[in-house]
């Protein structure tokens, strides 16, 4: 279709919110350091946070790596990012500085229309410090600490559990890993720290919402999760409501260590507003008989480059990665997964579902690597892509590097459009076309949504419906 032809009016999810709910954020932050990045800014961040000397050194070294590393030449278009035009540190909002009363009325209205509970509204609008979590989650917190579970924001964990922190921090993702991991290592601020002691199984999913006195989800948040032997935790980050960010670059690092026989599930629902570059490094180290599961759904942002990975370093470790990428107008979702079989008898399963629409570009980029000496490995990768119109694009780039003979590695992918027959059937039952299409899409991602906590799954389907509204003609 040429550009001259009239375009189908498109309802973008975030535009939709804007039009329907007038959602935007004009709030000026209370304090910002100066723009740009140099050793002085990095030192200032460390000083403001009253960090130990080793962390300051770590940050400065990371800055060197950041400056040395080239920008990736693959994936999405990164050339518009201006690293010198970014505030690298926002002083946490003063306790008295910002209250619920200060939040603009229109934002409150938006949350009301989305039906988000007031407690969570407060968190989302950045008044987390006043967020009355004590009363709501008091019991949960009590039972967690009784079991020895540590759940803090990362900065506090460095202060309160320096040894445990230092033992694991930066061991899964070294600063030299890639340019954005280096950037995060130099400038990190906020994020979650979780430690689950031996044998403890945390029954309820832990969510970023629960964090006590947590900073808001930041640009350069840093999360570290340690699941000790035989323990279990499920962590959920993000939410289905669009997170409006004035900062256009989000470069998080998430490190996870799952020790012998432990299991960790990490669920992400990413719905940044579509001015955001979301360049995140997520990696887990799975030891003997440990299981690591990533459930990663990407709906928002302008460009996401994120490939949750699992390094299986102990015999019998298992990795499970489920990925959804939905790219609408102006969006590029370069999602994927990485599994490294570095020990014998390790197994992995990757399932990716990507959907592109209104000129969006969604893809899967993945790696399956089996190192020498890791016999008996099995890996299955399955990617399905749905392209909803002729302006959109789907990419699949799976890499397989196999250095061992006693293995069974498989990859499969299909790309298709919504089946005419499925649509015809639903429409013959009296369902309007756009609803029918939304149903087909919901069915397409169902194998993954069914793995989400129930309320997220419900909201996810609601989001898909919103995305699909008025999309078929």
């Amino acid at each position, binding site marked *: 279709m040429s550009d001259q032809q009239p375009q189908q009016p498109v309802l973008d999810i975030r535009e939709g919110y804007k039009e329907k709910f007038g959602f935007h954020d004009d709030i000026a932050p209370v304090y910002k350091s100066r723009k740009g990045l140099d050793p002085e800014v990095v030192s200032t961040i460390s000083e403001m946070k009253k960090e130990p000397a080793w962390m300051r050194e770590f940050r400065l070294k990371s800055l060197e790596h950041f400056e040395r590393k080239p920008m990736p030449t693959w994936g999405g278009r990164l050339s518009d990012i201006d690293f010198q035009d970014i505030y690298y540190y926002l002083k946490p909002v003063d306790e008295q500085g910002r209250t619920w009363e200060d939040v603009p009325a229109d934002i409150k209205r938006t949350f009301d229309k989305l039906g988000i509970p007031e407690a969570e509204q407060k968190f989302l609008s950045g008044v987390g410090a006043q967020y009355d979590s004590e009363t709501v989650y008091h019991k949960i917190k009590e039972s967690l600490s009784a079991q020895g579970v540590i759940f803090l924001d990362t900065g506090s964990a460095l202060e309160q559990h320096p040894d445990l922190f230092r033992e694991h921090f930066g061991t899964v993702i070294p600063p030299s890993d890639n340019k954005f991991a280096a950037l995060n290592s130099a400038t990190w601020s906020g994020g979650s720290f979780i430690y689950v002691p031996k044998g403890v199984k945390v029954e309820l999913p832990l969510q970023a919402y629960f964090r006590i006195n947590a900073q808001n989800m930041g640009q350069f948040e840093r999360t570290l999760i340690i699941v000790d032997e035989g323990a279990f935790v499920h962590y959920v980050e993000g939410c289905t409501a669009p997170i409006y960010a004035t900062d256009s670059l989000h470069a998080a690092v998430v490190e996870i260590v799952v020790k012998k026989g432990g299991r960790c599930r990490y669920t992400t629902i990413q719905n940044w507003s579509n001015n955001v570059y979301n360049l995140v490094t997520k990696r887990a180290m799975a030891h003997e008989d440990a299981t690591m599961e990533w459930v990663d759904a990407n709906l928002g942002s302008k460009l996401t480059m994120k490939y949750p990975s699992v390094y299986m370093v102990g015999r019998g470790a298992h990795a499970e990665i489920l990925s959804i990428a939905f790219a609408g107008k102006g969006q590029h979702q370069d999602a994927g997964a990485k599994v490294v079989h570095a020990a014998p008898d390790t197994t992995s399963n990757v399932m990716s579902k990507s959907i592109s629409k209104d000129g969006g570009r969604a893809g899967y980029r993945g790696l399956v690597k089996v190192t020498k000496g890791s016999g008996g490995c099995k890996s299955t990768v399955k990617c399905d892509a749905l392209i909803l119109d002729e302006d959109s694009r789907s*990419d699949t780039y799976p*890499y397989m590097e196999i250095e061992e003979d006693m*293995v069974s590695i498989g990859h499969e992918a299909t790309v298709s459009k919504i089946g005419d027959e499925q649509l015809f059937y639903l429409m013959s039952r009296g369902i309007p076309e756009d609803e029918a299409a939304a149903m087909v899409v919901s069915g397409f991602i169902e194998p993954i949504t069914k793995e989400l906590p129930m309320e997220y799954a419900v909201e996810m389907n609601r989001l898909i419906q919103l995305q699909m509204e008025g999309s078929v003609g």
Partner: protein
Amino acid sequence: MNPTETTTPARAGAPATDATPRLGSMTQNDVAAIAARGGDTEFLAKRRTAAWRWYQDTPFPSRLDELWRRTDISKFKWEDVIPTCPAHPMVTSASALPASLQEAIGPAEERSALLVQIDAETVYAERADTFAAQGITFAPIAEAARLQPALVERYLGATVRPDENRFTGMNAALRSGGAFLHVPKGVRVERPIRIVVSRQTPNVAQFPHIVVALEEGAEATVIEEYVSSGEPGIGVCVGVTELTVGDAASLHFATFQRWGGNVYHFGTERVRVGRDSRFHWTVTELGGKLRKADFEMFLEGEGAEAKLSGCYFGSETQHFDFHTFQNHKVGHGVSDLLFKGALRSRARTIYQGLIKIHRDAQRSDAYQANRNLILSNKARADSIPSLEIEANDVRCTHGATVGQVDDEQIFYLMSRGLNRHDAEMLVIGGFFTPVLDRIPAESLRALVTAAVERKADG
């Protein structure tokens, strides 16, 4: 069948060894000398000169290039490569060719034409009596350019341009031997046409350029074969193969590579297929020390059908790096690719494939599969099957597997009284059968099957 009445000028026959310029010290004049010696027309000589300049100004691909990330040629001593070699005398009958090539060229009744290149020269050409009446052109490039200048100017470089990268530039500047085949509209060539590229002089490089063009409705089967038995020193081959399949034409093209273990072979091979045409490519890759090859199929006319069936078997320290490209530029096309390989000892293979469906190529149907059988824990197989889809009304599927010989199959066969070795041979044979069965010409199929079996046997 006629031995060729070749018009190739008499050769100087200077036994060039130390006096022969190496690639590192070559000048424009040396290129002009190659043109004169090869009997280039003015058109060809100009093309060489332009390509030489391009080659001089263009760096080799580095490991930053996605397609070169896994093959490191930075240590290869290009400056020592000898691009020309002493003339070989033309032979007047196939039986006068070296004994080692007799098997390769197969029985006379299984071919309609044959060109044999040894080192940098064409040494033998024959074509069926009917070719003249049918208007078929089949000759080394320089000769074809004298006989049919318009055709050569139209098809030479039409599919693979000299200025694509340093290798295509090198091939165009230093071209030696090669073949030009043109089949006019509606003409059907009954038996396979064979092109054999061989070598015997140590350290000499070859730059074969094979051009095949089928006009509308034409039909042909063409076999290109690269064969040697491992002379001392190293061998270098930088090749370009460009194929054009006209509307409603049908071409079966077979590539069979079984160099000795000393050869470095870099090849760019591409086909453009027209409206409602049929193209089938059978690729067999067994030999060489390092082989880097692009096999690319561009679907340029609606309703085109392109199929590639490939098999490779790496052993010792062989390094194979294959790239396939199914490029759907227009709609209603079908492409189907099956690339199967086995690896033994320390072999390293890379398969990198791409299906690209352009924005306007609606109703395309594309399939791509890569299957690897690893027979040793020191071997390494990389597989990267990719999709880039810009149209929505399409069907694209791909799959890749890397695995070992299935224990259950071995167990079953052994329970029927086979020993482990024979059982394994049977399973490996079965793995390749679907691909080998598609090879044209019975003698070639038998030859390939035997060669695969020998490799399987270690």
